C-alpha cells in the first residue's frame, strides 16, 4: 500500500516536472531526494534540469553513484566545470574506484525481493538467494521498528575483499584494514564483504541487517542522523530482523560499556569521529559500538519505540540532533548520556564463568594448544583422521569451550568413522563459548531431529556459508591423498552453494 502511494507520488512529481517543461531543476531538492534514496523522484527532478549547471551536474553525479552507475558518475563528475568543487572531487575519486572495482561485475536483480545485487566475484552468485532472504526480512524490520519504507530495489555491492570495499565505498583502505570493516552503507548502497574474504566467514546476516538499517536511517532523516544514533540503532537492529539465536547476548554491550568506563577506555558516544570504521583500533571500534548500543537501548527503554520515530521525523525536518532531542524528550543529549552512564556504572558487576554468550577464554598455554591443534590439523589433512582425533580431543581438554576445536575433532572422528565419538567431541551448545559455522554444520549433521538439523544449518549458513561442511550440508571432502568429494546436494540453490564453496577450497 505504502509502496503504491510512493510510486504514485513519484509519478506525480515526474508529471509535474514534465509539465513544467523548461522549469530549472533545483539542485538542493535533488540532493534531498537522493539522500533519502528517492532516486526515481530525483531522476524526474533532474530531467528538467540544465545540463550545464555545475550544481545540477554535481547532483547528477551523486545520483549516478547512489544507483551504482559508477561509469556515469565518473563521466559526469569529470566535467571541467566541477574541477574546483571539493565535493565533486571526493565523489569522483570514489566513482573511479567503484568503476574499476566493479567493471565487468555481474548484476543479479530479484524484482520480487526488490533487490539489486552486484557481485564482484561471479562465484558469489550462489549467495544471492541467501542475501535476498535476509534483505527482505531486514527491510520489514526497518519498516516495523523505524517506520521507514526502504526503496526498491535495495542495492547491495558484494565485494571480494577489503581493497574493493574501500574502492567502491570510498572508505580509506588503511582504516578499513585497521578496524576490520566488513560492510559499509554509503552512497545509498550496502557495500559488503563476501564471506569468502575472511577465510572462516563472519556473521554476514546480522551485518547486512545492520547496514540496511543505516540506509533506512539515511532515508528517514535525509542523512541527518548523528553517528551515535546511526550506529546505535543499526547495532540494535542487527538481530531484530530474526528470532533470537543461541549465543545472542543482549547485555554484552552494557558489560563492555561498563568495562570501558571502569578501565578508562571509553570512546564516548559523541566522540566517534567521521565513522566507527575510522577509529584507530579494533578495540576502540568495539567499545564504541558497545557504548552507542547500550545508550540507545537505555534511551529506548526510557522513552519507548515511538520516541525513535519522533526523533527521526524531527531530524528530517531540523537536521539538528540537539534540537530534535530537546524537542522530543525535553532534555538535551548530555542529560540522557549522563543518566545512561550512571545507570551503566550502577549495574552489578558481571560474573565470570561459562555463561552462554561468553567469549572463549584464552587457553592456559597458547603454544601448547597451538602445537596440538596444528599437529591435529596436519594429520587430518593427510588423511590420518584417527590420529588427528586423538590430538584434537587432547586440545579440547585444554580449551573446552572453543567451538572450532570441537568441530575439528568431530570432523576427525567422523572421517575415522566414529560417529559417537564425534558427537561427544562436538558437545552441545552449552559446552561451547560461541557460535561457529562448522560447529553448527556438524551439529546439523549429527542431529537426529530434522527440524533441529535445519535450524542448526541455518545458523551455520548465517556464519560461514562458504565453508564446505556448511555449504554442503554437513559433508566435506576428507583429507588425504586419495580423498574424493561427496556428491553435492540435489536441490539447485544448495547445490550451487556447495559447488561455490568447493571452487575455492580453504587452506
Amino acid at each position, binding site marked *: 500500500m505504502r509502496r503504491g502511494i510512493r510510486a504514485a507520488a513519484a509519478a506525480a512529481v515526474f508529471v509535474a516536472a514534465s509539465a513544467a517543461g523548461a522549469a530549472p531543476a533545483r539542485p538542493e531538492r535533488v540532493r534531498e531526494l537522493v539522500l533519502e534514496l528517492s532516486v526515481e523522484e530525483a531522476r524526474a527532478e533532474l530531467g528538467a534540469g540544465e545540463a550545464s549547471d555545475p550544481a545540477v551536474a554535481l547532483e547528477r553525479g551523486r545520483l549516478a553513484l547512489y544507483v551504482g552507475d559508477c561509469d556515469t558518475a565518473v563521466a559526469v563528475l569529470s566535467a571541467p566545470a566541477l574541477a574546483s568543487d571539493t565535493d565533486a572531487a571526493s565523489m569522483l575519486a570514489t566513482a573511479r574506484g567503484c568503476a574499476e572495482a566493479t567493471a*565487468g561485475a555481474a548484476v543479479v536483480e530479484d524484482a520480487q525481493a526488490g533487490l539489486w545485487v552486484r557481485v564482484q566475484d561471479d562465484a558469489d552468485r550462489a549467495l544471492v538467494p541467501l542475501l535476498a532472504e535476509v534483505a527482505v526480512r531486514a527491510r520489514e524490520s526497518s519498516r516495523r521498528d523505524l517506520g521507514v519504507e526502504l526503496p526498491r530495489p535495495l542495492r547491495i555491492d558484494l565485494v571480494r575483499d577489503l581493497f574493493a570495499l574501500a574502492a567502491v565505498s570510498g572508505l580509506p583502505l588503511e582504516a578499513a584494514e585497521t578496524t576490520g570493516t566488513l560492510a559499509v552503507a554509503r552512497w545509498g548502497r550496502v557495500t559488503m564483504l563476501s564471506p569468502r574474504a575472511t577465510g572462516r566467514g563472519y556473521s554476514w546476516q546480522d551485518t547486512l541487517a545492520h547496514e540496511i538499517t543505516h540506509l533506512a536511517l539515511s532515508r528517514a532523516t535525509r542523512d541527518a542522523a548523528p553517528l551515535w544514533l546511526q550506529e546505535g540503532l543499526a547495532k540494535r537492529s542487527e538481530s531484530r530482523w530474526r528470532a533470537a539465536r543461541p549465543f545472542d547476548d543482549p547485555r554484552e554491550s552494557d558489560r563492555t560499556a561498563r568495562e570501558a568506563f571502569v578501565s578508562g577506555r571509553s570512546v564516548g558516544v559523541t566522540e566517534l569521529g567521521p565513522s566507527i570504521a575510522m577509529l584507530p583500533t579494533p578495540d576502540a571500534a568495539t567499545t564504541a559500538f558497545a557504548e552507542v548500543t547500550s545508550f540507545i537501548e537505555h534511551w529506548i527503554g526510557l522513552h519507548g519505540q515511538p520516541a525513535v520515530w519522533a526523533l527521526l521525523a524531527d531530524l528530517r525536518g531540523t537536521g539538528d540532533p540537539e534540537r530534535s532531542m530537546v524537542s522530543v524528550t525535553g532534555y538535551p543529549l548530555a542529560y540522557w548520556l549522563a543518566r545512561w552512564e550512571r545507570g551503566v556504572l550502577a549495574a552489578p558487576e558481571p560474573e565470570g564463568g561459562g555463561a552462554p554468550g561468553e567469549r572463549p577464554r584464552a587457553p592456559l598455554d597458547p603454544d601448547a594448544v597451538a602445537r596440538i591443534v596444528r599437529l591435529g590439523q596436519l594429520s587430518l589433512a*593427510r588423511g590420518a583422521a584417527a*590420529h588427528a582425533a586423538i590430538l584434537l580431543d587432547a586440545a579440547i581438554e585444554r580449551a573446552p569451550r572453543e567451538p572450532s576445536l570441537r568441530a575439528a575433532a568431530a570432523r576427525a572422528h567422523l572421517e575415522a568413522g566414529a560417529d559417537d565419538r564425534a558427537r561427544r567431541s562436538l558437545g552441545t551448545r552449552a559446552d561451547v563459548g560461541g557460535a561457529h559455522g562448522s560447529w553448527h554444520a556438524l551439529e546439523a549433521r549429527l542431529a537426529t531431529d530434522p527440524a533441529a538439523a535445519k535450524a542448526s544449518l541455518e545458523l551455520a549458513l548465517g556464519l560461514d556459508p562458504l565453508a564446505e561442511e556448511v555449504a554442503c550440508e554437513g559433508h566435506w571432502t576428507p583429507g588425504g591423498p586419495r580423498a574424493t568429494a561427496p556428491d553435492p546436494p540435489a536441490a539447485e540453490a544448495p547445490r550451487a552453494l556447495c559447488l561455490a564453496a568447493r571452487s575455492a577450497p580453504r*587452506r
Partner: protein
Amino acid sequence: MDPIARRIDRLAGAFRGTAARGAGRLVGVAVLAALVVAAHLARPGTPAARGAAAAAVVALIGALVALTVRERRTWRDARRVLSRVLAPSDPALGARTLRALRLFEGTRERGDERHGSPELARLHLERLLDRASVDAITAHGARRARRATLAAAAVGVLTAGALVAAPLRTVEGLDILLARDGVAPVPLPWLADVSVVARPPAHLGTTERAVLLGLPARLPEGSQLTVRGRPRFDGRRLELYDGARSAPFVADGDDGLIARWTVDSARPVHVAARFGAVVIRAPEPVEILPVEDTPPLVELADAPRTVELAAQDRVELTWRARDDHSLREVRLVLRSGTREERRVLERFDDLQPAAAGGHAITPRDAFLRRAYLPIEVTIEARDDDSLRGPKWGTSAPVILVPPAVGEPEARRHRALEAGRDALVDLVVALAARGAERAAAAALTARRAALARELEDAALASHAGLELPAGLGAFLRGRAQSLGRPLAPGESELRRAEDALLAWDTALRGLARRDATSVSRRLADVVEDVELAARLARRTEDTQRALFRLDAAAAAARAGGGQLATLGALGADLGDVARAGLERIRRLREANDLGRTELAARHLAQRLRHAAPSFRSAPSSRGGPSALPGDGAGSGAPSRADDHFDQLAREVEELTRDHAAAVAEVERALGGADDAPVPEELAREARERALAVRRATGRLPRGAGPEPSTARGAAALAREHAEALAQALERLSLEDAVQAGRDALERLTDAERRAKASPAGAAGVEADALREARGRIAHELAWAERLLEERTRSAESRAHDALEKVAGTEAELARRSGNLSARGRSGQSGLPDDASSDLERAGEAMSDAARELRAGKGSRALERQREAQRLLERATTGETSAESPGERAAEAAARERRGDPRRASGRITLGGEVPGAAAEDRARELRRRAIEGLGDARGPLAPAVRRYAEGLVQ
C-alpha cells in the same frame, strides 16, 4: 642544246672557272673560323655558353645552305647569269644583251611580235652573245677570285692565329660543345706521371697498395684512393669524377696535384677537367670492384631450439662469431614481448676477426623472472665498420619458454609440502607403532632416511629457485636434528613432531612471503593487460595490442593458478586473481576495452597490495573484527624459527664485533704507516716501479677474452705487474707483495701454457717472460723484506694496543664457542657445517688472542682473518630474510614501476624520421670523422678509434 643557252653556259663557265676557286676558299675558311669561334663560345661549359655556340654553328650551316641554293638558282637563270657575268665585264654589251634577252623571251614566250619575229630576236641575241668576250669575262672572274682569296686568306690567318695560339682550347670547346649528360665525348689526358694509391679503412688494419689505371682493382668499401699527377695543361680545374660525385685536385706542394677519393661504389673513377657543367675525362679510369663489409656471422650452438625454462637450472649458450674484418663487440640479447635487454659479453679493442665463448643464464635472472612470454635469446656481434655504422650479425635464437609467474615458487612449495607430508606420515607411524623392537628399528631407519631426504630438499633448486640462505640453513638444521641419534630418555615421536612443526612453520612463512612476491609480479602482468587494453583503444595497431592483451591475460591466468597453491595467502590472492581475470575475460569477449582496462587496473593494484582479502589490527576482544578463529588462539605451534633467528642474529652480531676487533688490530699495526716515509726510500720505490714497468713492457697488453691462453695469462701478469708498480710507488707494501705474487703466478701459468699450446702464445716471447719474472721476483723480495721490517716495528710499537685487543678476542672466542654449542643442540640449532665453522672460528680466535698477548700482531691478524672468514661463512641470515634473487626481482619490479614510460602509460608519437639527405650528411660526418681520427697510431690508437666510433654512432 639551245644555241643561246650554250652561249650563256660558255660565258658562265668562263666566269665560274676562275671565280669559283676563290669563293670556295673563302667559304672553307669562313666555316673553319666559325667553328673556332663556336668552340671558344662553348668552352666555359655553362649552359648559356654552350647554347650560344650551338646557335652560331647552326647559323653558319643555315647561311651555307642559303648561299648554295641562291647560287644554284643564279646559274640556272640566264638573266642573272648575264647580270653577274657579262654586265660587270662589259656593262654596255651587258645591257644590250639583257634587253635582247628580254626581247627574245617576249617574242618566244608571249608571242609579242611588235618588235620583230622570234627568229629575228634570237638572231639578235645570238649576235650580241657572240660579241661577248670570253676573255673579259674570265678576267672578271679572275678578279673576283682574287678578292675572295684575299678575304679567305685574311680570315684564314686570323683563324690559324687563334688555333696556333691555343689549339687545345678549340678542341676542348668542341668537345664541350658535343658533350652529352655533362660528359664530353672525347677524353683528354690531363695528368702526366699519374700514381694511384689505395688505403683500406683504418679499422681493417691493412696496408696501402698501388692501383693501376685502366685495370680493375678489388678494394674494401671505404678505402681511400689517393691520386697524384703532374698537370699537363695549366688553368684546368681537375677533379676525380665517377659520374655522380667528384673530389677536386689540389696542389701537393711539389708542382703536382693530389686528390682523395673514398670508395663506395663500383663506378669507375676518372681524372677529369671541369668546365662549368661539363667534364672532360681522361682516357683511363681507376676501375674499382668494391668489396662489401658483411655483417658478422654468429653461431649459437644447438640453435634454433626451444627450452622449457622450468625444467632447467641453467641454460648454457655456446657461441662463435666471426667477421670479414674484425669484431668489436658481442652481446647477449633477450627479448620477450615488447621488452628487450642487451648485455655485453665481450668487447674487443684489437683486431679480432673471430671469437668464441660461453654464457649461462639461470631462471633466477631478473629479466627471466619478469618475463611471462617466450623469451628469444640470441647472440649478436657487431663489426667495426665505422664508415657505414656498425653492422650486427645475429645468431639463430634459443627460445626460452618461461614458467608461469610463480611456478618456481609453487614447485618449491610442493616439494617442501611433500617433505611435510612425509614428516606427518612419520609422526603418525611413530604414534601408532607397537612395542616390537623390529618395528621400532624400522621407524628409526625411516627417520634417518627422511632426514637425509629433507636435507636434500632444503638444498634443492626448483626451476632455478633455491631457498633463501637463512631458511635453507634452518631447514637443514631441522633435518640434521631429526636424523641424529636419540638422547637417553628422549621421545622419538616428540623429535619427529618438533621437526614437523618447525618444517610446517617455515613452510607457511615461506609461502606467505612467496605469495606476496608472486602477487606483486603477477600485478606487473595484469598491468600489461591494462596497458594493452589502453593501447588497443588509442592506437592504430589494435590487433597487435589485442594480441598482447590476450597473451598477458593468459599468462596472468596461469600465474594466478600458481599463486593459489602458495599457502593460505596464496589461495586467497589466487582466488582474487581468478575472480578479477574472469571479469577481464568477459569484458574482453564483449570487446569492451575501456572497462577491460578499468578491471585490469583494479586487479593490478589489488595484487600489488598483496595483503589478505580481510584483515584487521590485533584485537584483544570481540567486535566487528573478531572473526572465528581456528582454535589455536595466539599460540604458535613451533618457536623453532624464532630461536633459530635469535641464534642467527647472535652469529651476525658476533661477526660484526669480530670484524671490529680485526679492524682494531689492523689499525694498531698500521700505526707504523703514519710515520713519514724517507724521501730516499720513496725515490727507490719509484725507481723499482719503473724497473718493473720496463721489464714487463714486452708482455702483451689487455687480458682479452681468452685468459686461458698463454697470451691471456701473460697479459694478466702484466696487469698484476702494473699493480705491483703502483703499490710500490705508494709504498703500499702489502698490496705490492700480493700483486707481485699474483704476477709471478700468472707468468708461471703463461710459460706453462705457451709450452702446452704454442698456437695460443702468439705475440708472447719467451725471453720477455723470463725478463719480467726476474725483475718481479727481485722487487717482490725487496717489498717482502721491507714489509717484514715494518711489521716488526709496528708490532713493537703496538704492543700495548694488541694486548688490549687480546682480551676482546678471547671474549669473542668464548661467545663463538657458546654459539657453536647452542647451534649443535636442540630443535632450533644451526646446520652442522655452520656450527663447525663457529667452533673453528672460536679456536682461531683463541689462537689470535694468544698471539696478541705475545705481541705477534701479524700472526694474530692472520688467525683473526681466518676466524672472520669462518664466521662469515657461518652467518646464515634469518629465516625470513630474502634471497638475493628475490631482492633482485623486487628491485627489478620497482625499477619497472618507476619507469617513466610505463608510469605514464603513453607512447609519444610524432617523432621526426630522418630523410635521405640527413642520412647522407650523417654518412659524410662518419667519413670525415674516420678519415680524421681513424689514422691514429701508437699505444692510444684503440682508444682514439673507439672514440671515433662512438662519435660516428
